[in-house]
């Protein structure tokens, strides 16, 4: 396990307490700024919460800012039943989970070849990956549709999993390849002197060192894929294969919108992602600070 703690850069001084007093004012200012920023970020969530428990009539009369006149939970249950939420949740978990794992594996293998294996023209290859990542999905959608139809994967979750594994691992490869190109040569040489093959080096030397970074990638891939809308919308046409963001869109009609139900839906749909984040939050912060060890 990589060292993950960061030690404060300042030397410890014996006059610690007076230091704190001296910095008193600026500390409070920073605290206030952070609080304001945090509150500002919470505002949309507060609105969502407020409107999720409002009846449509209440919303139309009082507007989005008013306090609900009754505690209305029908929006939540309507959304749950209308879209068959447990099924959508499973689909989303399946797709985002598979993509996260597969994406990380593919990224690692690619990056190992590019960053440590030093393949010829790797700069171009990495550039190509980056390009693939930057292409707008709208430009990809028709080719993907025809390809999926040809191989009989249209309207299956597998098509979405494959597409996103490729898209996400393009970014992952780019990132990991640059991380690995700075991997200490001495460690690799020592390993091969001990008789380790390429495969062993990857799993016994490179992988353990990269684990925090990989964990972050895993979480990012999961959340990014979870939030994807366009490709699932196009590729998954049956209600039984759709994901949560697509289900959420089904609440919006041609000319009418149902704001309270949409808010209720957003609230339910948000919970899994928030839970996921809370569970892996430690891994995330560990991974981000992993670079600080050097």
């Amino acid at each position: 396990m990589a060292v993950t703690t960061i030690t404060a850069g300042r030397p410890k001084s014996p006059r610690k307490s007076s230091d704190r007093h001296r910095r008193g004012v600026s500390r409070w200012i920073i605290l206030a700024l952070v609080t304001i920023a945090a509150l500002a970020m919470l505002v949309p969530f507060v609105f969502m919460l407020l409107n999720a428990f409002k009846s449509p009539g209440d919303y139309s009369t009082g507007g989005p800012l008013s306090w609900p006149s009754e505690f209305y939970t029908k929006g939540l249950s309507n959304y749950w039943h209308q879209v068959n939420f447990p099924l959508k949740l499973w689909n989303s978990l399946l797709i985002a989970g598979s993509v996260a794992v597969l994406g990380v594996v593919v990224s690692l293998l690619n990056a190992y070849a590019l960053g440590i294996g030093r393949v010829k023209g790797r700069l171009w290859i990495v550039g190509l990956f980056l390009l693939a990542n930057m292409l707008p999905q709208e430009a990809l959608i028709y080719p993907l549709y025809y390809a999926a139809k040809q191989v009989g994967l249209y309207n299956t979750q597998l098509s979405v999993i494959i597409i996103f594994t490729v898209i996400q691992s393009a970014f992952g490869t780019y990132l990991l390849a640059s991380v690995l190109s700075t991997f200490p040569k001495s460690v690799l040489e020592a390993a091969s002197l001990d008789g380790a093959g390429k495969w062993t080096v990857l799993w016994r030397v490179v992988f353990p060192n990269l684990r925090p970074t990989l964990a972050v990638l895993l979480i990012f891939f999961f959340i990014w894929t979870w939030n994807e809308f366009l490709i699932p919308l196009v590729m998954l046409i049956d209600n039984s294969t759709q994901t949560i963001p697509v289900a959420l869109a089904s609440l919006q009609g041609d000319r009418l919108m149902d704001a309270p139900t949409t808010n209720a839906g957003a609230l339910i749909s948000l919970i899994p992602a928030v839970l996921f984040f809370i569970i892996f939050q430690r891994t995330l912060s560990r991974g981000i600070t992993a670079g600080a060890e050097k």
Partner: protein
Amino acid sequence: MGRFRKLGVAVALAAIAGTTLAACGSDDGGAAEGSDAKVLKLWHYESENSAMGIAWDKAIEIFKTEHPGVQVTFERKAFEQIQQNAGMIINSDEGPDIMEYNKGNATAGLLSSQGLLTDLTEEATKRGWDKELSPSLQTTARYSDKGVMGEGNWYGVPNYGEYVMVYYNKDLFDKNGIAVPTTYDEFTQAMDKFVAKGITPLAEAGAEYPAGQLFYQLALSKADRSFVDNYQLYKNPVDFKADPLKYGAETFADYVAKGYVSKESASLKAEDMGTAFISGKAPMIVSGSWWYGRFKDEMKANWDSFLFPGNKFSAGSSGNLWVVPTSSKAKSLAYDFIDITMRPEIQALIGNNGGVPVKADASQITDPKNKKLIENFNTVSSQDGLAFYPDWPVPGYYDVLVSGFQSLINGSKTPDQVLDAIAKPYDDGVKEITGK
């Protein structure tokens, strides 16, 4: 580490299991023309408690009793999904056998010109749909081989209609001692009285469709059928600098100048306009029948509607269409289903739930307010007065109109400049479509 790997394997396995199951599930074979098909895959995107949703549920029920042994797999879709992907969906084997689809050149017209929709002409004459729908309703059901609506083969069948009217808040009229107008002069007088009392009489929404529809509605007061045909069906070139469009833009500017429409509404959305009316802030709005059900559910004040005074023509059209994709595996079942939706009992169900059925017998409608809605529609429809929507003629015109009338509301452009701004994209678009 070990947990990490196990989780990964589990997820990957689950992925494979899930997708193979899905692949097996969707693999149901069917006969070509489909009279012996055992499954009818039906999609629409009306919400469960809307008039159409209720009526079509009933239609499905009737269909099931009349076709024992046929399984109906119904899915409620997202409007967005159908709007964006209908072409891709029905160009595959995974699409439905029958579905609801948007009317208009850019949607049903486009797909029909690509050969993705089944020609329903024969069924329409055989089953009498062509006699049950008025000419202006048929306009959106028929498309030329280039996908231009109005003439040609039948590619869809509408069940319901929609039209633009004036909704008013009775309580606000009573409270301010203002009489409900019946003529156009009384209409403007009533608005003057509201302005004098410091109330903006018309809620508007410059950032979305309502402003363009108000402009069109005003223009239509000086229009005849040939204008509508020219503007919507490209029969002849349209002069934007002459009436009726000139009148529409100038009167609109006049409404803003006189305070009938608030300058602040330039940036408002349709939803804001609707909630302003529901909450009793605005005495009137000019908008479509799609609001009706919502007002009925949510509005506490007394309200009612009347046709835009003095107009023979109103913005409006048939509703969305039932279409049968060329890839449908159960075509004859699909025709049977459409036929059921045209029956009086289903049509009455649409009407009794606040929708506008295409061939309603108003005497079957019990609620007086619903009855009025339908009678007004029948008035417009029977005098061939549905004039469609201003943004229909050319692709992308919606945004042109929105930005045009936004600048008219906030006063950054004169009516003349706005007409110039909206004329060019129209002319270019029409040129592209007709090739002239």
